[in-house]
């Protein structure tokens, strides 16, 4: 392979407009995007990989008040909606830049790849009423006030960090086509299969890795004893070849799962392999099982046969979390540089916590505003992908926050709640569905809350975005719902037209066949249909807004119009997904979430088989 030295670098400088004490001094942030392929400087010569870098750097003045933040993403211009690699990083002042190293083995000659970076900073607001600064991890510059946690010298109790988006940078590279090879005589096909003993001579052999499933739950969570089957195989099949697996950290795994690696001590645990090495079997494969660790994130698995290595990634996460956004009547506290986003939870938990704050404010302040320092302070919930919330920043499964791994817990500080209100506040916790473990008399006084509604139960109630008792699937349709009816509704919702004859015949027969095989095959088939429709260029060309999109999802899946409450819920869900995810990926994620809901499955299970399919009216 000819080594091509190609590097494209784009540098953007953004001058922040900061209303800070030293407004005269110039605060500058640098946004950087780099992309390279088979490049010496990137260190990937001959690897046939595309690598990228996204960074946000601050100068001294900016670093006094801000921390840098960057979200990086590599994509191919012919398929811009699919991220090949992405990540996020939050740095520290001007000392540690926010940096994301990206990489992908999707290397296709003639294609153009871009690193797209979103640059931001986190600011810390000054509150004149308290005279305190947000100061996570730094020593209190002001030196007054009482730290909320005894023994800790910094103060981060009275203020809220806020993210300021600065802009984006992008760098692109096109992989050159290889020179046209000199024609050579067609080799005579070997009369016998590749001889395993002479494997090196088997020029056509390929090594592949298979990993299933590619998403697992972290150990320690419900369902966390799950494992993935991983195989590395050589084709043509050759037995008794040396094979091995290695667990590796890839650029994509950096900072994944809500853990900022530079702020942790030690190395992220990657899980375990039942067997790390062995010989291939008669099928040419060496197979073992992979068990995830207690830490969520992305783990790389490389498989090697006779020196040829291939890789696959496994995502370790508790799925379906939402983030608790800032609210009027509560403070979000406890953000640290090691875990910058600590308020993730199940939909029920995230939706219920603000109601606690609203109830508390209404009970004790009526229609008057509640002073910031009096607001309910929600501390750690769960990390973005759940799993162990390693408070000690050592990746350890030891220590506190044993159960902040499934998105149903939240610690509420008691220090700013007068004792005379504790009983009432406990009553509010209960009424809003939380169990209470009272830690107010310990060194870190707080209430440990646990949302007591199992996720499965919650999936069937109104706040999960689908109203169960209003306009249910069967009620809104006058006649029986058949596969044919389902098809026409799906086409109408996505493409705003009827099916053509070919489309109808093709999909109708597939749905009817799946229906005869049982509920699960039918559900899978409907899911596949919906995914295809919403990914079709015909749908994308309609340029639907997020509000229109969730309406389309309802019309297509539940065959009814969306309610205002449902629209708000699902649009919020869409906006809660990581900023770095391409739009289409977010939408597919929403569809997957939607399809996991009981209401949708009930609707699909209610579809009846049709004895005599109606004649479709194809579009002329």
């Amino acid at each position, binding site marked *: 392979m000819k080594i091509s030295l190609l590097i494209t670098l784009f540098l953007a400088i953004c001058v922040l407009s900061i209303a800070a004490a030293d407004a005269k001094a110039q605060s500058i942030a640098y946004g950087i995007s780099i992309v390279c392929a088979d490049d010496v400087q990137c260190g990937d010569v001959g690897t046939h990989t595309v690598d990228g870098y996204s960074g946000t750097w601050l100068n001294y003045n900016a670093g006094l008040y801000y921390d840098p933040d960057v979200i990086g993403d590599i994509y191919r211009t012919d398929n811009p909606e699919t991220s090949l690699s992405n990540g996020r990083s939050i740095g520290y002042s001007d000392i540690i830049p926010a940096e994301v190293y990206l990489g992908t083995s999707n290397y296709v000659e003639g294609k153009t790849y871009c690193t797209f970076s979103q640059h931001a900073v986190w600011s810390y607001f000054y509150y004149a009423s308290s005279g305190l600064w947000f100061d996570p991890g730094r020593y209190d510059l002001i030196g007054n006030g009482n730290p909320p946690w005894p023994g800790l010298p910094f103060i981060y109790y009275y203020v809220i960090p806020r993210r300021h988006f600065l802009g984006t940078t992008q760098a692109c590279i096109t992989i050159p086509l290889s020179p046209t090879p000199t024609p050579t005589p067609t080799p005579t096909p070997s009369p016998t299969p590749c001889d395993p003993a002479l494997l090196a001579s088997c020029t056509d052999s390929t090594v592949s890795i298979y990993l299933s499933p590619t998403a697992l739950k972290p*150990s*320690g969570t*419900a369902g966390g004893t799950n494992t993935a089957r991983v195989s590395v195989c050589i084709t043509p099949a050759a037995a008794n070849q040396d094979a091995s697996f290695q667990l590796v950290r890839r650029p994509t795994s950096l900072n994944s799962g809500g853990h900022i690696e530079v702020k942790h001590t030690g190395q992220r645990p990657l899980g375990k392999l039942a067997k790390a090495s062995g010989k291939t079997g008669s099928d040419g494969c060496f197979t073992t099982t992979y068990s995830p660790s207690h830490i969520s994130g992305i783990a790389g698995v490389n498989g090697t046969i006779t020196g040829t290595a291939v890789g696959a990634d496994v995502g370790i996460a508790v799925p379906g979390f939402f983030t608790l956004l800032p609210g009027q009547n509560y403070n979000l506290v406890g953000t640290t540089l090691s875990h910058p986003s600590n308020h993730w939870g199940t939909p*029920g938990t995230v*939706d*219920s916590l603000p*109601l606690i704050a609203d*109830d508390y404010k209404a009970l004790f302040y009526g229609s008057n505003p509640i002073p910031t320092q009096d607001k309910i302070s929600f501390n750690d919930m769960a990390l973005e992908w759940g799993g162990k919330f390693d408070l*000690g920043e*050592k990746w*350890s*499964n*030891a*220590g*506190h*926050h*044993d*159960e902040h*791994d*499934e998105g149903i817990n939240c610690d509420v500080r008691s220090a700013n709640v007068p004792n*005379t209100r504790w*009983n*009432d506040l*406990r*009553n*509010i916790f*209960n*009424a*809003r*569905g*939380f*169990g*209470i*473990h*009272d*830690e*107010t*008399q*310990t*060194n870190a006084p707080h209430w*440990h809350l*646990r*949302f*007591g*509604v199992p996720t499965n*139960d*919650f999936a*069937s*109630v*109104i*706040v999960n975005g689908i109203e169960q*008792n209003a306009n249910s699937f069967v009620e809104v349709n006058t006649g029986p719902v058949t596969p044919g009816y389902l098809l026409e509704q799906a086409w109408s919702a996505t493409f705003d037209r009827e099916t053509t004859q070919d489309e109808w015949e093709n999909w109708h027969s597939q749905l009817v066949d799946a229906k005869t095989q049982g509920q699960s095959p039918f559900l899978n088939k409907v899911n596949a249909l919906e995914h295809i429709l919403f990914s079709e260029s015909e749908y994308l060309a309609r340029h639907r807004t997020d509000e229109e999109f969730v309406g389309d999802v309802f019309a297509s899946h539940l065959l009814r119009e969306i309610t205002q409450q449902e629209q708000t819920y699902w649009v919020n869900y869409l906006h809660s997904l990581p900023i770095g995810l391409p739009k289409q990926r977010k939408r597919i994620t929403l569809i997957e979430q939607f399809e996991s809901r009981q209401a949708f499955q009930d609707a699909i299970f209610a579809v009846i088989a049709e004895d005599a399919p109606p004649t479709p009216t194809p579009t002329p």
Partner: protein
Amino acid sequence: MRYWLLTVTLALLQIGCSSYAQKTETYENRTKAERKPFQKRNLDLKSPESYSKRELENGKEYDHKPTVKLLDERAGNYEFSWIGYDKKKKSVIYQREDSVEAVVEAKIEKDSEGTLTYKYLVKNLVDSPTYLHGFVVQTIAPDVQTTKSDAVFIGEMSNFIKEYKEGVWKDFVVREETSPRINQGQSIEFSLTSKDLPGVVGCRASGGQGYTIGVGEHMPSELDRIVPVNLWAKGYTIGPIASLSKMNKSERTRYLLESLPTFVEAGWMSEDTSKIYRAILEREDLAGALEQSKKDLDKEYVTNEVFQIIEGLNLYDNREIPFNR
């Protein structure tokens, strides 16, 4: 001839006696109504069957032995214990809130403007193992009002919880700062107002503290997940239901017919009494049901809850304001 006359006389006498006996069975030999106490939940709390060993900061593992031990079945007391990071036994006591033994009696009063005041007298029974903590009642009407009181915390259960998703469940809790505890043998009255008619609604009662006390380190997750949340005793009472006033006669009759099993389950009438009402209602005779309930209330064959539901549905039929009695 004389023999024939005697036979006829005896036969007539037998018919008369038989008829009298039937009447007696219908009106006199029924079981009297007796409200049933709130029901405990069917839930066993047991030690986790499998769990992962705990990890220490040095990476070593140890068996922290998470255990759930029943201390007192009647009182619903459990000990949740484990070996802490400091190698000492940690122990948290949990009392089931549904262990309270209580009963609720409801009555309705009407003011001159037609507003109904629903009054709930919750009695903590003499044998109850703990004090009464709170009472929750379902309302399915838009105009429900409660009066703020220093003695009682009044809130609403989240309809995010499946159990409480229908209507608004008003939550009344005795405030310990300002009110004495409702101990065994004592009772407390909660109230709310609405203009809507009464129907059968759900209610809950809770007893004891309702939360666990920390011991300096969080409970292991496998134990934390076992501690129930809002495990409150279940019951029925009457509460405002807006849809009742929109029902026609046939729908109201059907509503009552469908409610009969609940009346029996709640102890508001016996099974044999419900058969009498079923027969009356199957003829769509709402007025007959009201007459029957008046008599039965006097003789304690039905409770006030049954009478007031039937009265409301009857009187509203004539566009009169109910509850003039």
